[in-house]
């Protein structure tokens, strides 16, 4: 709750309050921007509770406003350095998650055949007795791995707490969702600069070059990035050039939109690198940065050797060649390449549009290379190593069982060579395949496995099949397409009734600590799943050491030095956010010179091949000799033992590796890729499906709209009122060859199936492509999403009778296969070859 003190603080942050002697001064005070709200009906002030959004992964700090015990309004947190108090439409619609009449308010047990929609209400005791009974048996039998946990939007304190539960139970059979999101990007980054997350320092940039990011509509760090970018381009006349298949709103706000054939951005990036190297435009900051790069097999190569290697490797990727692949005129590629090289600094950004395709991880590597040779890595105005809050938290019991796992998270054999974020879209396929075992209990959380992955029919068939999945539990505030196929539904609270701490990336390069507080008590019998985990652990005899998620958050606030110093839990409850006002933005982390104590230790050796200092003890080796004999690169998991890297005779923190053994240099040439029989340098690799494509075939791509999150917001009535239909975009030239007119019914046919939809004929898309938005075509998820009430739901809402839209759109995932980028495992949402005809 906002106390008086914090209110005054918010007030003070606004322009001067000009009141003298109770009479308003002639100089009129400017209105303050937020932190308060009043009822338009009664005029009474609404109760303000600092919290955090959890619609999308950005998790913006927010304020919940409560009136008569009801959550009525959500606004941004004006004291947040990430958002400056603004919010997107999805965040504003968070109240709809709370008020959705189709919320599941009680545990439900299936009574008819699986998927028949027949349920009965049961008590929490009954639900947890059955569930923990099954789990306990698996644990007692020594097969805890047969409990599989498949999660989607889980992060921060929820992730820590729930993972503590799973670890103490003893299962490591976990499926995530990153491969349907941006796994290719993270893998590409892990292969170049270690730990993932790039932050784009728009505040300080002079030029933004964008490959496939729709940052103004949707992004991992949407509001914090978007509001900065638009300010930068309008207030500071910074140019934004966007390469995209389609005129997204981001492309529309760009100085230039450059249409590109789907899945071919990498060709453009390589050609830009070619121009920069062949015209010697790398000189200056790029050349300086090459000192920290690995560009050949030899980690100790000189800058001259690195330049020569780049020139040789890139020679074939001329702009003329790239034009043939991408459709972007050679002259345009060269022009933009020169511009990005001259702009100091330039921010080169990339997202799913460029990477959710064949060899997408290599596209991200190519973008990293472009940023490196133009000297735009981790410096003000560039592509930076992200910073976020580092919370301390209760770790749970000391003695954990050794966790066991089913090896089903990384896809079918051969699906991906370096799936550092797993191949979640093939988890169900792996269960069907059975060669690596099957779970007895499959539980999914914050995840619409059926709807969010490709090959929807196959997902349904597998989840319905009791011989493949004997017991299926869905943790969910809503009755979505996956919940409909469960045996047991545990009613989760929407985020509006959860506790939590958050640590998402701060675009200010200064960490922001913030918490989520429930606006109101959970409705019905809903329980935050984190609390349910604490309860289940207790029931199975391994208590986690805290009684509630609230207590966990409280303990974290008191354990985290920065937060504790600010006033701990009480301060966070009153203010919601905290950042160190004296902190300076963090840049150039790789340049930090290590103090000798860090690497002149008995357990630390220098790897002669890579120049990497690493701790053999941490790598679980016996001695320095063993470490030297095995070598850093050949020791499994040696990245966890990384200490630093030698550059020019100095030991630096370098680029700390994560998930794969990186030297600590910025790796344009990758030993890991080479060892996996993949291109060592970012390269063009022909897309097999395109090679076989007929001239009349089109390429299907997907996109997100500003007013929906990917798959969990169609129940928000106000969002679905804005965006409920997704006709397929076709260029007029393309449409003409097929005799398709605007508004025509069309059929889109892929190797996975057929989809009926309508055409939106628009010049805002490249010829030869067809773009279909996500979010639509739900067949469950309550009345606003699908027109169907959730079972056993009695609640009514007058607005349900006012639904005025007649089409709910078509969901493209029915015809998008669960095909993986062979490097990262990323689902290839952007390069499905299809036939399109008038229906």
């Amino acid at each position, binding site marked *: 709750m906002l106390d008086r003190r914090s209110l005054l603080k918010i007030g003070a942050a606004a322009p001067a309050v000009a009141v003298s002697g109770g009479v*308003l001064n002639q100089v*009129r005070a400017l209105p303050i921007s937020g932190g308060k709200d009043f009822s338009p009906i009664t005029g009474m002030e609404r109760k303000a509770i600092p919290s955090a959004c959890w619609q999308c992964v950005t998790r913006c700090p927010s304020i919940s406003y409560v009136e008569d015990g009801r959550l009525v309004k959500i606004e941004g947190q004006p004291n947040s350095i990430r958002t400056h108090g603004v919010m*997107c439409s999805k965040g504003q619609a968070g109240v709809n998650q709370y008020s959705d009449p189709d919320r599941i308010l009680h545990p439900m047990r299936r009574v008819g055949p699986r998927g028949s929609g027949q349920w009965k209400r049961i008590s929490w005791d009954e639900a947890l007795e059955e569930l923990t009974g099954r789990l306990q048996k698996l644990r007692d039998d020594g097969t805890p791995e047969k409990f599989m946990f498949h999660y989607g939007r889980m992060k921060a304190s929820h992730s820590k707490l729930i993972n503590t539960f799973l670890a103490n139970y003893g299962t490591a059979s976990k499926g995530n969702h990153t491969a349907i999101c941006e796994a290719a990007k993270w893998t590409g980054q892990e292969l170049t600069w270690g730990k993932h997350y790039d932050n784009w320092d728009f505040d300080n940039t002079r030029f933004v070059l964008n490959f496939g990011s729709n940052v103004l509509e949707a992004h991992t760090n949407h509001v914090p990035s978007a*509001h900065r970018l638009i300010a930068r381009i309008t207030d500071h006349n910074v140019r934004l050039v966007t390469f995209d298949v389609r005129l997204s709103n981001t492309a529309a706000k760009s100085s230039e939109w450059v249409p590109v054939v789907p899945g071919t951005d990498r060709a453009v990036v390589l050609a830009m690198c070619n121009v920069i190297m062949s015209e010697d435009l790398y000189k200056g900051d790029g050349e300086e940065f090459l000192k920290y790069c690995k560009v050949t097999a030899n980690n100790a190569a000189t800058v001259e050797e690195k330049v020569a290697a780049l020139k040789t490797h890139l020679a074939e990727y001329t702009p003329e060649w790239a034009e043939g692949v991408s459709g972007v005129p050679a002259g345009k590629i060269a022009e933009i390449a020169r511009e990005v090289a001259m702009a100091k600094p330039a921010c080169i950004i990339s997202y799913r549009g460029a990477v959710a395709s064949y060899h997408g991880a290599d596209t991200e590597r190519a973008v990293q290379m472009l940023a490196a040779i133009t000297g735009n890595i981790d410096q003000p105005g560039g592509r930076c190593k992200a910073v976020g809050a580092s919370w301390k938290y209760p770790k749970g019991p000391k003695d954990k069982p050794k966790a066991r796992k089913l090896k089903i998270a990384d896809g079918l054999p051969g699906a991906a060579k370096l799936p550092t974020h797993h191949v979640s879209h093939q988890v169900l396929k792996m269960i069907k395949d059975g060669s690596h075992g099957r779970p007895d209990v499959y539980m999914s959380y914050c995840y619409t496995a059926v709807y969010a992955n490709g090959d929807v029919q196959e997902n349904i068939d597998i989840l319905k099949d009791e011989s493949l999945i004997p017991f299926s539990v869905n943790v969910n505030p809503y009755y979505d397409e996956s919940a409909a196929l469960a045996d047991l539904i545990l009613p989760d609270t929407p985020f509006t009734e959860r506790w939590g701490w958050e640590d998402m990336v701060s675009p200010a390069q200064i960490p922001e600590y913030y918490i989520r507080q429930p606006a109101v008590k959970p409705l019905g019998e809903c329980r935050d799943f984190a609390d349910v985990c604490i309860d289940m652990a207790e029931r199975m005899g391994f208590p986690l050491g805290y009684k509630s998620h609230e207590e966990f958050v409280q303990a974290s606030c008191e354990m985290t030095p920065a937060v504790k110093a600010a006033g701990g839990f009480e301060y966070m409850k009153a203010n919601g956010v905290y950042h160190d006002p004296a902190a300076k933005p963090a840049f150039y982390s790789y340049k930090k010179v290590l103090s000798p104590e860090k690497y002149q230790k008995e357990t630390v050796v220098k790897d002669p091949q890579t120049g990497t200092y690493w701790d053999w003890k941490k790598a679980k080796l016996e001695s320095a000799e063993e470490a030297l004999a095995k070598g850093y690169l050949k020791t499994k998991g040696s990245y966890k033992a990384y200490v630093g890297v030698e550059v020019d005779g100095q030991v630096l923190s370098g680029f700390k590796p994560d998930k794969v053994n990186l030297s600590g240099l910025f790796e344009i040439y990758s030993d890991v890729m080479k060892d996996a029989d993949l291109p060592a340098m970012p390269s063009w690799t022909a897309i097999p499906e395109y090679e076989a494509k007929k001239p009349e075939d089109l390429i299907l791509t997907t996109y997100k709209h500003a007013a929906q999150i990917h798959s969990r917001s169609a129940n928000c009535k106000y969002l679905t009122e804005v965006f409920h239909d997704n006709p397929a975009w076709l260029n007029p*030239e393309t449409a003409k060859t097929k005799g398709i007119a605007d508004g025509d019914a069309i059929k889109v046919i892929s190797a996975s199936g057929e989809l009926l939809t309508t055409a939106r004929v628009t010049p805002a898309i490249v010829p030869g492509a067809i773009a279909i938005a996500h979010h639509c075509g739900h067949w469950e998820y309550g009345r606003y999403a699908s027109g169907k009430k959730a079972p056993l739901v009695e609640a009514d809402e007058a607005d349900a009778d006012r639904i005025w839209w007649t089409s709910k759109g078509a969901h493209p995932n029915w015809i998008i296969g669960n095909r993986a980028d062979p490097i990262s495992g990323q689902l290839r949402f952007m390069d499905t070859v299809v036939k399109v005809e008038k229906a």
Partner: protein
Amino acid sequence: MTYHDRNISRRDMVKATGLGAAVATTAVAAPKAAKAVAAPGHQAQYAMVIDVRKCIGCQACTIACKTEYEVPLGKHRSWVEAVEKGTYPDVSRSFRPRLCNQCSEPACVPVCPADATWKRDEDGVVVINKDDCIACGRCVEACPYDARFLNPVGGKADKCDFCLHRVEQGLVPSCVNTCQGKARVFGDLNDPESEVSKLVADHPVTVLLQETGTKPNVYYIDADHADPADARFAGQYVRVDTNRPVEERR
């Protein structure tokens, strides 16, 4: 009686006692922050400047307005239009956030047979007294901008009122508060020092349907006023999308 009605009756009372309109409202809740209401003797004209260059079409304003008032589905106090036009690859999309213009010559006011709607002297906001409104719908018809509707909840005429309940407490309107691009700027046009006054003075601005003579107080910087009718003459592709059920633009 709603919050506004109370203020409105106070205004009537003030009028009746001949004190004039320049009385700062004693708000229902004790004001804790700066107040943006008129200083004694000052007649404000609240206005909004929408800098379309900064609008990213995120629809946060639409939803903020919807939740602030629990506006029923199908009705809008505020909405956003997107104007897409051009020939591949020279295509543009520009956004046009919409709301009541709080016109200085409001077409909606004189048609009201019940004297239930008027432009406030103290701040220029066009308001509706729901108690007096007889739900005849004439103002809804008369507004050339489609800014009014009969609210299915209560049945009376409704529209944007610049979030008076917030503004009178020193807060910006809800849509302004959330605007990602800071494209929506709110203030007093009669105060030469206000941001809106400066923006209007420093930029070429436009209003919607200037020819109707309603004298809007919502100004646009860099708006694209193209509509599909233009396409017919120019042989050009122009498409205007809106998130309202009403397809055609008014």
